[in-house]
């Protein structure tokens, strides 16, 4: 076992509101180090922030993993938000587009789905919620 093996993954524990700005900064830095363009950085980090906000709001604690992924010639960035919270009772509703005057209603999931390319949501009261999203870079 060697320590020098490069792991192209960023892990951030999300425990409360104060972790959110830290998460944003770390994700930004991670993407910058990998040469991701400013536009894609803003998009991916915003999605990460949105998912992490959901964790704090609905589950209390959880984690975010950011991974460099590859499919054939395509490179992408995957975000994986996980929590062991109560799960989402009505997935259809959570994925339905709703606009509110405050912009704060709902889970922000439809927005995350638009910002990213691939979207995979798993949720149950027993296991909590896992949202895996991927953005393919040009």
């Amino acid at each position: 076992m060697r320590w020098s093996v490069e792991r192209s993954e960023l892990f951030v524990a999300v425990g409360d509101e104060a972790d959110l700005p830290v998460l944003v900064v770390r994700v930004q830095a991670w993407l910058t180090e990998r040469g991701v363009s400013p536009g894609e950085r803003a998009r991916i980090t915003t999605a990460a922030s949105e998912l992490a906000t959901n964790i704090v709001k609905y589950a209390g604690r959880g984690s975010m993993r950011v991974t460099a992924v590859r499919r054939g010639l395509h490179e992408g960035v995957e975000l994986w938000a996980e929590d062991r919270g109560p799960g989402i009772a009505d997935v259809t509703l959570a994925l339905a587009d709703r606009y509110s005057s405050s912009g704060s209603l709902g889970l922000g999931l439809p927005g995350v789905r638009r910002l990213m390319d691939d979207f995979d949501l798993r949720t149950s009261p027993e296991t909590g919620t896992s949202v895996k999203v991927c953005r393919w870079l040009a």
Partner: protein
Amino acid sequence: MSRLAASTERTALVSHFGDCVVATLRDDLDRGQFASFRSELLEAVRSQRAHGVVLDASALEVVDTADFARLRQTLEMVELMGARTVLVGLKPDVVAALVELGADIDGISGELTLEAGLARVRNPR
């Protein structure tokens, strides 16, 4: 966060230009810091009897829907106090992400620069 940290750390910059207040947002404000920024701003509007507020958002790199809702509420509060508001300097990437997220941007005025923002709140179109 302790009171001491909150009072010694500058969360934002609120300054005055005649009858206008210019407030500069820092990028990494958490909810508590944003709340103190908001109080400082509203107090400045009251004490200066400001007619306009220019919110400089040019330092913001990432704005999610929760951040945007806080921004929006702050603008609404200022308007309720009787001052006009304008958001200036939002980065193109931030704007693009916000619109794709589906943030409610209705009724928010934006300008590219601080100067244009000041002109807008002084001479609304």
